[in-house]
């Protein structure tokens, strides 16, 4: 009975002490409140980010787990490791065995073969296509048509001449440009075209090899692609959705371009910048005048005029020149200058120029380097360092739902794994057999692996030599060619494959999609066991590890948050400690009196602890409430993803965070821990106060 009464007495004393030292306790309480709020808010945000990131990463390309070569030199980093260059994650030589073994592990829904790589891609330019139509007209014996096309090419050469004359004035290596100019002038000359009927091959060859390369619209576009079992991929990665075109039919080779990549990289740069400026100026209401960054973009836009002029058919160029002269009062000069003048947009004229651009210029040029349905040439270095090209049809564009604006997720283009293997330069069993046959034929039993591969694939950085490989009798590569040819009778992209072809080959890594993602840890262990049991020589990592930098970033942010919280609490600890020590000193007579009239040290300690716990609990409740309130508020309005990486982390343009009991408990326990720690020293001092001080 009296024990309880004594306790209530202590609580009452504690309450009164708290009240009578209001100033100190408001300060200390506010620190605690702020700290708790921060813990609840911070951990809730991080948990929400982790949750949404889990969704965006697992449901886009990673799956829940990833397996890859156990002895890989580098770690698997799906979204890049942050270091330049390609990482070496080894090879899963026999995917079939892996798929069969791991599919039997409980909770595994799908094992999706994958391989990521970078490649340069090329599409034909207007000049390429015009030369191609000339070739066709000639071989079909359509002399009149050929003449008309020839006139077009000459007009194009005239435009190029103007351009290269300009270059002559700004570039250092003038002899190079002069050589190019003389080639252009040769095409411009009537003499050049006199050979058209007598020696069409020579004319075409000159155009192909000397003139076409001068149109440098296609200088080094890189794409990152993921080769996979496309049907299996589409079934198992929920956020995958087609945007334009069609899904690659089963058994077909092809490329699905990411809509984000398509709009950002493949789209004509002038059109892209126009669209970007429209969003900034018209939709967001920003102004060029106030923003040096936009100013810079406009300056660079003007210099992009060739992206228009090089694309214009001569008739269209003349027509556009007239339109621009009418549109831009007082503007004179050749089309190049008119376009440059047109592109010099300001806050005042932008809206109208944007309209003019899409009404009058866009229809005359190619808005994208390639269209959906086109065949593009993809060139990549194989594992052994040889350049290898394939032509693939772009069946359609897709996006990862929620991640439409993420550059990281948007960088992934999808490709069938058969083509991926071709580009990767990995032998299928079929080819291995073929190779052995050659080895037997030419009597080289111990031909070096790289050489054999070279012999087999004919990889080289010279397109001409690539074709020479065909002479060795590998039909599959007969059509490998750096020029995209849509009408090539028997093209690689027309060949088909079946499920066995997909499975019985290599992959670089494989995604494992689980039935129940909450059992991830257990499944990871089960898969490890299966790997050991079947001696697959693989390692299995969770999606967060597999995602590389991005996955680690959340860990990094978590560490930063924890460090920040730690620092805030250390500061709070010091402040609380100091104020409490001071308050204790002020109360030393009271404490001495309590000790003199018979209060034990333990009683004084209890008094202090209860005081702190009361304050901590009150501040903790308020802080947790405030934190939870803030999270709820953000959960309503959403936190915009200001940076691209955030889009991926937020799994969309905005994060709608929520909190769980765990966050509140974390906040409460941290604050109580800090309170007790902060009280410890002053309480110790208090217990040391001698009763003599009261006398």
């Amino acid at each position: 009975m009296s024990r309880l009464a004594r306790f209530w007495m202590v609580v009452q004393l504690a309450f009164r002490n708290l009240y009578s030292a209001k100033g100190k306790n408001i300060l200390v309480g506010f620190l605690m409140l702020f700290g708790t709020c921060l813990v609840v808010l911070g951990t809730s945000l991080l948990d929400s980010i982790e949750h949404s990131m889990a969704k965006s990463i697992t449901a886009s390309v990673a799956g829940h787990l990833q397996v890859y070569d156990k002895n890989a030199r580098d770690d698997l980093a799906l979204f890049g490791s942050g270091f330049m260059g390609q990482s070496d994650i080894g090879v899963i030589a026999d995917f079939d065995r892996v798929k069969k073994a791991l599919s039997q592990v409980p909770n595994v829904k799908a094992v999706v073969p994958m391989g990521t790589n970078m490649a340069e891609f090329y599409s034909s330019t207007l000049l390429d296509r015009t030369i191609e139509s000339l070739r066709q007209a000639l071989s079909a014996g359509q002399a009149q048509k050929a003449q008309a096309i020839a006139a077009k090419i000459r007009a194009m050469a005239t435009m190029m001449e103007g351009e290269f004359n300009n270059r002559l004035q700004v570039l250092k290596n003038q002899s190079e440009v002069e050589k190019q100019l003389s080639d252009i002038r040769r095409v411009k000359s009537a003499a050049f075209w006199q050979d058209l009927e007598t020696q069409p091959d020579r004319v075409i060859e000159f155009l192909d090899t000397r003139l076409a390369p001068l149109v440098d619209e296609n200088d080094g576009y890189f794409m990152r692609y993921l080769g996979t079992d496309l049907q299996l991929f589409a079934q198992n990665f929920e956020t995958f959705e087609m945007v334009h075109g069609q899904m690659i039919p089963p058994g077909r080779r092809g490329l699905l371009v990411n809509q984000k990549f398509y709009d950002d990289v493949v789209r004509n740069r002038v059109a892209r910048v126009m669209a970007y400026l429209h969003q900034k100026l018209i939709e967001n209401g920003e102004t060029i005048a106030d923003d040096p960054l936009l100013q810079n973009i406009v300056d660079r836009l003007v210099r992009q005029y060739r992206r228009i002029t090089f694309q214009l058919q001569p008739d269209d160029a003349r027509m556009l020149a007239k339109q621009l002269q009418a549109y831009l009062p007082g503007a004179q000069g050749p089309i190049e200058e008119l376009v440059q003048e047109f592109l010099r947009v300001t806050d005042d004229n932008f809206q109208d120029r944007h309209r003019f651009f899409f009404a009058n210029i866009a229809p005359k040029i190619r808005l994208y380097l390639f269209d959906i349905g086109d065949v593009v040439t993809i060139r990549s270095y194989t594992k052994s360092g040889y350049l290898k090209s394939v032509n693939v049809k772009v069946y359609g564009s897709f996006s990862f739902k929620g991640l439409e604006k993420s550059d990281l997720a948007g960088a992934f283009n999808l490709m069938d794994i058969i083509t991926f293997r071709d580009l990767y330069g990995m032998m299928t069993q079929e080819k291995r057999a073929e190779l052995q046959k050659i080895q037997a034929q030419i009597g080289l039993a111990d031909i070096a692996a790289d050489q054999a591969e070279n012999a087999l694939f004919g990889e080289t950085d010279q397109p001409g030599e690539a074709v020479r490989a065909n002479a060795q009798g590998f039909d599959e590569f007969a059509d490998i060619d750096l020029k995209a040819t849509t009408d090539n009778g028997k093209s690689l992209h027309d060949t088909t494959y079946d499920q066995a072809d997909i499975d019985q080959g290599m992959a670089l890594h494989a995604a494992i999609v689980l039935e129940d993602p909450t059992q991830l840890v257990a499944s990871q262990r089960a898969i490890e066991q299966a790997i050991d049991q079947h001696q697959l020589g693989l390692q299995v990592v969770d999606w967060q590890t597999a995602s590389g930098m991005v996955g680690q970033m959340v860990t990094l942010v978590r560490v930063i948050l924890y460090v920040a919280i730690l620092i805030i609490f250390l500061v709070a600890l010091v402040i609380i400690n100091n104020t409490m020590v001071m308050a204790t000193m002020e109360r030393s007579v009271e404490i001495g009196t309590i000790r003199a009239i018979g209060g034990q040290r333990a009683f004084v300690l209890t008094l202090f602890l209860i005081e702190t716990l009361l304050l901590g609990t009150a501040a903790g409740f308020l802080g947790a409430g405030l934190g939870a309130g803030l999270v709820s508020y953000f959960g309503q309005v959403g936190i915009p993803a200001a940076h691209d990486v955030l889009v991926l982390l937020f799994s969309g343009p905005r994060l709608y965070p929520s909190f769980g009991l765990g966050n509140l408990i974390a906040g409460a326990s941290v604050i109580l821990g800090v309170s007790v720690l902060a009280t410890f020293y002053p309480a110790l001092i208090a217990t040391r106060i001698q009763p003599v001080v009261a006398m």
Partner: protein
Amino acid sequence: MENIVELKQVVKEYPLGKLTVRALSDINLTIEKGEFTVIAGPSGSGKTTLLNMVGCVDTPSSGSVTVRGQRIEQLGDRARTQLRLAELGFIFQTFNLIPDLTAAQNVEFPLLLQGTLTKKERQRRVAELFELVDLTPQIKQRPNELSGGQRQRVAIARALVTQPGIVLADEPTANLDSVTGLNIIDLMKDLNQKRQTTFIFSTHDQRVMQHAQRVIQIVDGCLSEGAPAS
């Protein structure tokens, strides 16, 4: 009579820089149960130091202090605290009431520390003491709402509530006007006679000394017993 307090050759020295200050030198003193003793002496003579010895809040540098048969210099902090709670009542010069508690709560406080009485018993005991110090109307008030004399009477009630064998009071009237101070002394003497409680208090006030049954003079840490000045 029972020797309730016994000091033998008690020396208390305080370090003061490199020097030591001898506050008590070779004190021999015996106090019997029921005595009403005044320790008289000028400021700095060692009154408080002596009371601290008897009150078990401090230990001697040498010699022995026996309170209720216990050698306090041999006790640990817990045991001395327990002894204070069980056997001693304290009245302070500055009253030392706990400002956050009401007068009644202040008086109840030692009973709660003892934890032996039920709530009813405690309430009865507290009421009885307020009756005794004639402060029943102020029972619910806080220390800062009371006058100095009233506060000291609450302090006396607190000192007596556990029915201690000895009540110590270090200059209990020093912060009171002379009339109030004499009233307080009268009250203490009254309680001493009614309850046979041993009172030991210090003062340097001549008029206060007159009320004592026994006066112990202390000068520079040395005792000299003398009859109450008349």
